[in-house]
């Protein structure tokens, strides 16, 4: 028995050696930042510059949080983030599900189409942001012979007159529409892939059984495919929400650093707010980051709870 115990202790000691590099790096580059963020968040009116200049008081409390929550700009950022997430996650999930099911149902060209649908995943989001901006932008806006941009031209083909998507004075909802299209476009590949992987791992016999039971195509989808895929769908929705809350680069990609169309409402998001506040109010940036983390944590817990109820495992 003694030898056995001794062996266990040796085993334990060895495990920590393997984990040493990971734990060390994590302590320095993850744990300390978290602690430092908490420190900055709770240190009232904290800013790095003030700390360097020694002009910081040393009361601790939730003043930073209050300041952030009371600031209308932050509320707008929260509203924008929620709106974008609530719009893009369902749309991209449903679209990805339908595409994955269709892809799974065809044989010829399946690999080719699969490759195309996976393209956005391998591209640089800032790069494609520029392309989207170029597509929706009206070059020479306000002059009398503007070039309306490719999207408006396509709309023109269908008889619709050009819409001012992202230029000066464009409406908030037009801006949101462009962002939703871009975010969904970016989110599709990962979702399609996961769902397709899930579909292919479903036992073929259930579909044969459904054929024998002469189930119509739509009922096969709703009654068999979706329930069996529910763990995958839950995973995609959960990661979708987490990603949605951290949306930032797509807005910079299209609207540039001032995060809004000229004369339009601000499209800034929570992460955008954090970056702006990092300029000279690190206290508030940290507070906002913790608020964001809390929201993500709560929403993920709700999602997990709901998905545990719904998914068949």
């Amino acid at each position: 028995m003694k030898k056995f115990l001794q062996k266990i202790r040796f085993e334990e000691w060895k495990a920590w050696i393997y984990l040493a590099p990971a734990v060390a790096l994590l302590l320095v580059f993850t744990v300390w930042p978290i602690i430092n963020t908490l420190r900055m968040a709770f240190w009232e009116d904290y800013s790095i510059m003030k700390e360097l200049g020694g002009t910081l008081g040393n009361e601790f409390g939730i003043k930073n949080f209050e300041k952030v929550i009371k600031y209308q700009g932050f509320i707008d950022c929260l509203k924008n983030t929620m709106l974008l997430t609530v719009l893009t996650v369902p749309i991209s999930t449903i679209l990805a599900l339908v595409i994955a099911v269709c892809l799974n149902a065809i044989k010829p060209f399946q690999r080719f189409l699969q490759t195309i649908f996976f393209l956005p995943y391998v591209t640089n989001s800032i790069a494609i942001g520029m392309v989207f901006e170029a597509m929706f932008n009206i070059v020479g806006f306000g002059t009398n012979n503007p070039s309306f941009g490719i999207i408006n031209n396509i709309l023109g083909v269908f008889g619709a007159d050009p819409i001012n998507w992202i230029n000066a004075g464009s409406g908030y909802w037009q801006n949101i529409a462009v962002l939703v299209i871009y975010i969904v476009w970016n989110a599709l590949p990962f979702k399609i892939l996961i769902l397709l992987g899930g579909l292919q791992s479903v036992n073929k016999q259930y579909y044969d059984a459904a054929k024998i039971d002469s189930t119509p195509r739509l009922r096969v989808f709703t009654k068999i495919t979706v329930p069996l895929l529910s763990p995958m769908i839950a995973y995609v929705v959960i990661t979708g929400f987490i990603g949605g809350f951290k949306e930032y680069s797509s807005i910079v990609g299209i609207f540039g650093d001032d995060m809004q169309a000229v004369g339009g409402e601000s499209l800034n998001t929570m992460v955008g707010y954090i970056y702006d506040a990092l300029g000279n109010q690190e206290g508030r940036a940290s507070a906002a980051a913790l608020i964001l983390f809390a929201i993500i944590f709560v929403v993920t817990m709700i999602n997990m709870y709901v998905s545990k109820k719904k998914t068949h495992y």
Partner: protein
Amino acid sequence: MADKKIMTTMHEKDMQKVTVTQKITKVIVQFLLYAFLCTMALIIVFPFYWMIISSLKSTVEYRLPIPTLFPQEIMWGNYIEAFTAANLGKLFMNTVYVGVVSTILSLVITVLSAFAFARLEFKGKNALFAALLATMMIPGELFTITNYVTVTKFGWLDSYTVLIVPFLVSVFYIYLLRQNFLQIPNELYLAAKVDGTTDLKYLWKVMIPLSLPNLISITILKMMGAWNSYVWPRLVTSTDDYRLITNGLRDAFTDMSGQANIPVQMAAVTVVSIPLFLVFIFLRKYIMKGVSRSGIKG
């Protein structure tokens, strides 16, 4: 079954009609499937198409009111200018170097940690693992400033180390690999233990070969991560000998008056996207499997 006789409803129906309608519906369904998939594919591919043809247009043609769907005169010059103006060659080498080194090192760390989490028992294992998972949810922006101060204190600024070391530990891949290692039956490990194989040998001989597809997809995904990183490199590098390709993109082509030369910018963007695209084409299978497997365990 009250009455013995089976109600055979199918029989009355006229066989011919059923087979014909069935054939027609089959064709219609196939057609709809392909129509839907092709339109969606078009929507996905269109920005790429637009990127490539814009990169070949002259600035004048680019500004035409009615954009041309194919460049009237191909401007290959844009690509040369993209390469020379933004010194993409050097940046490209930097990105590849950083990508390869960080991937290898982080692979080693991921394998060791995943092995420890999957196979070895030690106090606080689950708590530590849960803590790791928690960090996945924390927005990265939180860390940027503090990490910047730390790396500057270490004096790593404007070097390859600062681009590589801070991101060696990716919790997600440790989680992924641990799930994969767990699928390998424990008996194999115990058996190996009995006939005296050391952990590392066992790891090398048994576990790694078995989870090779996963390792390859992790490697590719890690490379792509290095390829797309933008904020951190921009913060920590200032000279061209260490800057990465994405930094070269954003502000390289705005001339003095702030007028961005879009075609050249698009050329640079295309150049940046091609390597990733090629990697994807050749290693398609692994990327797909890696990413989709990450979903299986949910």
